[in-house]
């Protein structure tokens, strides 16, 4: 009876998790979906406590203590984080999930041995899987976090023989894992595997450039899902398998989307060391053709505009300029100008990064258009304001087949009547290449920090009126 209840609980939790991902298909239903997910988690926890009760467990204090500690840390982290630091936050949380998988699988192995059972092959294979994947997830996520928070340099750290070392570490862990499957009573092997995977996690992510961290994070996210799946195989628990698969699928899909949008195969991201050399601004591209203007001049251009498209990029996140941008948009709309936002799929440093920032600034999502929706409209646009975006509006992607971003679809801002670009200098974006847009006939550059620039623009526009 109790077992039936537990199983029903697990089934209900699985359904709630599926509904969570289903509900994320629209902003209107997304808040509820996330709540459903947390209810699912609650149901899963309660069902597990019920299961424990049957076995006459005594460790409720330990459990509650752990949940209290973890809960407080989780709440603090979640409430403190700036919206612009979301990529780091996800990396950190992801790492913790991986760590939990490692610990759970290790404990399950020890328990099986302590109870004098001979673990089955399914059990040990899954344990080794959870151990390797979870450890790589944990350390990889920590390195990604450190790079994004600039605790360590974002530049790829490459040394010769790196790939050989990583391959050796992976092979070594798998071989040790095979040994453990054959002699499951040698539990110490598990910790050796974890040690090897630790080195692997660090050395696999260090050589990847800071701007590629989002891909790493979503990939690790899918790994943490697969680790949960593996734990499910260890514990023979279907709910873990369902939840883990959902997470795994989500990570894989997002990784694919990002790689496709950057037009780079995943292998190039993971092993390419892109971002290692920064090509400095090419004089041939810019020499004497860049028109730098003042806020007042821009205000005059905006005066005559009837349709304005704002294209934000990573620089808007750095400058935290989203609220200022919102104010500018409202000012223009107040004057009858049609204002829309054009978002490139890999603008910023994680998928949907710009959307979250604009939502934070209370900009209704109906005005925020995806690339394919906004591109045909640039020809009818008077002014395109590019704020802190660079690679995603670089026409070289269309014209130069040797460029690192060749073939990446871009936002066609250059088709607008006038393009205003707000950034601090002519220095390149993530891809490290010059951008001919900045020297184009119809482009006006406004050099300043993103937030200050927009505030100045608002002032100038108010005065002009």
């Amino acid at each position: 009876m109790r077992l039936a209840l537990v199983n029903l609980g697990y089934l209900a939790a699985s359904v709630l998790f599926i509904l969570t991902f289903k509900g994320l298909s629209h902003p209107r239903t997304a808040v509820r979906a996330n709540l459903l997910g947390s209810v699912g988690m609650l149901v899963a926890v309660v069902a597990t406590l019920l299961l424990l009760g049957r076995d006459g467990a005594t460790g409720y204090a330990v459990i509650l203590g752990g949940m209290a500690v973890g809960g407080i840390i989780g709440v603090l982290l979640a409430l403190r984080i700036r919206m612009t630091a979301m990529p780091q936050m996800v990396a950190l949380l992801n790492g913790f999930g991986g760590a939990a998988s490692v610990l759970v699988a290790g404990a399950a192995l020890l328990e099986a041995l302590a109870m004098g059972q001979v673990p089955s092959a399914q059990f040990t294979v899954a344990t080794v899987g959870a151990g390797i994947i979870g450890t790589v997830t944990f350390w990889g996520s920590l390195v990604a976090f450190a790079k994004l928070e600039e605790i360590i340099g974002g530049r790829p750290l490459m040394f010769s023989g790196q790939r050989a070392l990583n391959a050796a570490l992976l092979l070594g862990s798998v071989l040790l894992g095979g040994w453990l499957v054959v002699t499951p009573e040698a539990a110490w092997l598990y910790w050796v595997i974890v040690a090897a995977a630790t080195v692997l996690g660090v050395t696999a992510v260090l050589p990847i450039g800071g701007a590629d961290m989002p891909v790493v994070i979503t990939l690790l996210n899918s790994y943490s899902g697969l680790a949960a799946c593996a734990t499910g195989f260890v514990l023979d628990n279907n709910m873990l398998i369902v939840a883990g698969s959902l997470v795994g699928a989500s990570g894989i899909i997002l990784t694919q989307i990002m790689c496709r949008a950057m037009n780079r195969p995943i292998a190039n991201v993971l092993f390419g060391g892109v971002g290692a050399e920064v090509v400095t601004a090419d004089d041939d591209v810019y020499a004497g053709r860049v028109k730098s203007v003042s806020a007042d001049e821009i205000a005059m251009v905006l005066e005559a505009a009837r349709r304005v498209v704002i294209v934000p990029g990573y620089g808007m996140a750095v400058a935290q300029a989203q609220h200022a941008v919102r104010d500018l948009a409202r000012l223009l709309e107040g004057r009858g100008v049609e204002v829309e936002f054009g978002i490139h799929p890999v603008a910023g440093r994680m998928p949907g990064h710009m959307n979250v920032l604009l939502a934070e600034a209370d900009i209704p999502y109906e005005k925020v258009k995806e690339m394919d929706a906004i591109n045909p409209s640039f020809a009818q646009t008077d002014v395109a304001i590019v704020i802190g975006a660079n690679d995603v509006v670089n026409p070289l992607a269309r014209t130069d087949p040797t460029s690192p971003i060749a073939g990446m679809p871009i936002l066609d801002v250059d088709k607008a009547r006038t393009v205003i670009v707000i950034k601090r200098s002519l220095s390149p974006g993530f891809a490290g290449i010059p951008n001919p847009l900045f020297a184009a006939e119809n482009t006006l550059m406004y050099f300043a920090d993103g937030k200050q620039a927009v505030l100045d623009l608002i002032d100038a526009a108010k005065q002009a009126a």
Partner: protein
Amino acid sequence: MEALAITLFIFVLAMFVGFEVITKVPPTLHTPLTSGANAVSGITIVGAILSAGLQLTTLTTVLGFLAVVFATINVVGGFLVTHRMLRMFRRK
């Protein structure tokens, strides 16, 4: 059917559900999707609770405790930060 066959069945079906459902999430919501998926991956809390609760040996209890802490951070932090983000998405 054998246990492994069944587990594989469930894995394959869940993967299909995952792919079908998640390809429908629009780019706008990709960041909340990542953090939400993250929170769900904290489901390993179930295994952590079992280890911490059984208290079979001191070592497994300690491991279980740590696992509960880590998993809870992941779950609570993940759902909360996702909620914070999603609440910001407003209509006109």
